[in-house]
């Protein structure tokens, strides 16, 4: 087959049919990435509504009921619609090319796992236009808010979560099968690029905990419609049980989001430092250690439910233990850069910002892990600031870096470095203006998930909103940059794209042909 992106001349079905019926890992990766970007813009516009309402104290633009729907939908769409599918898209594109496989192991299931996602989010989003409104109980959907007091549309929400869970499980099984069965000869486990390693571990996490989430929403469904009382104290159940089950899923979930981001950064930093990754095997072990620890720390989200002191101490120390493998990773990234020949292209800028801001978010996480102090911080903007430092400056910055890093390989065109850097600086400054003040608000006692606030919080909220609009604008610039690169970027056919980039994906022609590694490469 000829080089370059597939065209109709290659005998592919036309227009919509090509995308609907595709089983090609690159096509499906592209679908995932565009879908996640659309969800990112939608979830982002919910955030803009939230920040516009919080620009000044008092109620100006929307009703409190709608505000609650916005915070809930923002969280759900960003976690399940934007970040997770974005990394699945990167996995689809890159994992076969990184391990020398011709495609994913189960291509038709791959197609299915993508194409049920738009339906899940159509169902979820449609609730906003229904009587009673969309989900309004926070993205953590604690019972009884999400059962006894939920709007009738909660059943759509449950169905949507079931579908996206099924999609994630199928996607992960596919990744595990690809990595375990389809590595090129000589590509031993300990030679795999770190992005593949982090995704392999993430996929196991997903297979383990997405069914638990499905179980949680199924129990909600039963409580709401079939008269069971899993979470209803009136019938002998316990609402606290919901929180335990949710966070048994929810804590591994945050590592599901961040581990592939670690992988991306571990690919990019060595390239632009022109040095191999420092401490490769310690990176692999640290990833596995984080994944293991993520299962035994869940109740640190629930320090205020009234746990016995022994439980609080256990979850506190176990949580703090996660700082050790995470510290190993941060140390390795910094040491990779140390005395390297650094250049600061856009992907590298985002990666360095990732290391700095993620570490910052990690430190506020350490503060939150202190059981005694958490009672003050719990459910304040301090928590909001903390998880946006790790989710946005962590996962989203890393995803953005990945797109700039691999986009030339995908489409054979270079992005405009000046425009990329412009986006980085607007995003970096906007992000910090948005979320840094939220630490102060939280420490001063501003609770999260409220449509209004006391006058003493007015100034920092206004600053935070201005930063949010700036950060939102940076995403439109991102869209512009990507579209302009694909359409009108400077063509390149250098297989390596980046000087000294290492890995099998840089040995295939640029742009990556529709089919790669039909004959497996030999890895020495």
């Amino acid at each position, binding site marked *: 087959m000829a080089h370059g992106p597939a065209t109709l001349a290659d005998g592919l079905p036309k227009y919509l049919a090509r995308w609907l019926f595709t089983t090609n890992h690159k096509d499906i990766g592209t679908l995932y990435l565009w879908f996640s970007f659309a969800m990112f813009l939608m979830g982002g516009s919910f955030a803009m509504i939230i920040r516009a309402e919080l620009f000044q104290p008092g109620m100006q633009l929307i009703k409190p009921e709608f505000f609650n729907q916005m915070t809930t939908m923002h969280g759900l769409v960003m976690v399940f619609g934007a970040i997770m599918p974005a990394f699945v898209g990167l996995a689809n594109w890159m994992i076969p090319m990184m391990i020398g496989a011709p495609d994913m192991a189960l291509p038709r299931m791959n197609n299915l796992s993508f194409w049920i996602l738009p339906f899940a989010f159509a169902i979820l989003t449609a609730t906003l236009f229904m009587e009673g409104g969309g989900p309004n109980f926070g993205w953590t959907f604690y019972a009884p808010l999400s059962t006894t007091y939920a709007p009738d549309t909660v059943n759509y929400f449950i169905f949507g979560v079931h579908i996206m869970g099924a999609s994630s499980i199928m996607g992960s*099984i596919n990744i595990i099968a690809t990595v375990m*069965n389809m590595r090129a000869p000589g590509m031993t486990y300990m030679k795999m690029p770190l992005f593949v390693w982090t995704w392999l571990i993430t996929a196991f996490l997903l*297979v383990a905990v997405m*069914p638990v989430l499905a179980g949680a929403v199924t129990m909600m469904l039963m409580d709401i419609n079939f*008269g069971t009382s899993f979470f209803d104290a009136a019938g*002998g159940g316990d609402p606290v049980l919901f929180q*335990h*089950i949710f966070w048994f899923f929810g804590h591994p979930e945050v590592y599901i989001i961040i581990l592939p981001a670690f992988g991306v950064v571990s690919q990019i930093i060595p390239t632009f430092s022109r040095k191999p990754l420092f401490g490769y095997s310690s990176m692999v072990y640290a990833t596995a250690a984080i994944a293991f620890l993520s299962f035994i720390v869940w109740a640190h989200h629930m320090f205020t439910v009234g746990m016995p002191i022994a439980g609080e101490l256990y979850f506190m120390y176990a949580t703090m233990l996660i700082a050790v493998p995470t510290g190993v990773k941060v140390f390795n990234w910094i040491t990779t850069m140390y005395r390297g020949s650094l250049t600061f292209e856009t992907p590298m800028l985002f990666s360095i910002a990732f290391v700095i801001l993620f570490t910052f978010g990690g430190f506020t996480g350490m503060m939150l892990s202190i059981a005694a102090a958490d009672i003050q911080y719990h459910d304040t903007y301090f928590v909001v600031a903390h998880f946006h430092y790790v989710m946005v400056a962590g996962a989203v910055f890393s995803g953005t870096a990945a797109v700039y890093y691999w986009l030339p390989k995908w489409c054979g065109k270079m992005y405009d470095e000046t425009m990329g850097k412009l986006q980085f600086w607007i995003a970096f400054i906007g992000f910090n203006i948005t979320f840094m003040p939220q630490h102060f608000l939280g420490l001063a006692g501003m609770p999260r998930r409220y449509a209004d606030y006391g006058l003493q919080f007015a100034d920092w909220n206004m600053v935070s909103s201005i930063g949010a609009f700036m950060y939102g604008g940076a995403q439109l610039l991102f869209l512009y940059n990507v579209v302009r690169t694909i359409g009108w970027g400077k063509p390149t056919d250098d297989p390596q794209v980046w000087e000294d980039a290492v890995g099998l994906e840089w040995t295939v022609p640029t742009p990556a042909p529709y089919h790669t590694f039909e004959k497996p490469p030999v890895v020495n």
Partner: protein
Amino acid sequence: MAARTIHRKLLLQLSAGAVVMFAFAIFVLPPLYDLFCEVTGIGGKTGGAYEAVAIEVDTSREIEVQFVATNNATIPWDFYPTEERIVVHPGESRAVTFFARNRTGRDMVAQAIPNVLPNNAADYFHKTECFCFNSQPLAAGEQAELDLVFIIDPDLPVSVNTVTLSYTLFDITDRSEALQVSLVQ
């Protein structure tokens, strides 16, 4: 084709893993949670009906027992203890009453859910008779004196001098029509 077979095998294994985790969440975690709370007593739940045995009353100790009644959500009943606090000796059987009145114009069924604080006292608070063992049907405007007979176990940890028993009253009218509620509490 060999590749196909190994992919299928892995697919089946991992799918089975996912199904196991789903079943684990629904069928194992809730009972495990209840068991854990029961064994450690940290849920604050009291046990079922207690068979009174002749035990010596420990007159050297005085325990203050406080009663709290809460209406869940907005169940429009009057519900309060007739005595808010009493002082008892461990081993002594005492009877108290709660007052309940259905203020609405329709027949309702309510269920009181008990909770004991401090957590380490829950296992030592024995109820030989309690209205909370059954649901409470009250016709429109009807009122009732609800009985509770309890014994504080003499083995109550010495650090505990005050025990708070709280009842939260839930409206289970809809539920009790649909199915027979039987609670062990």
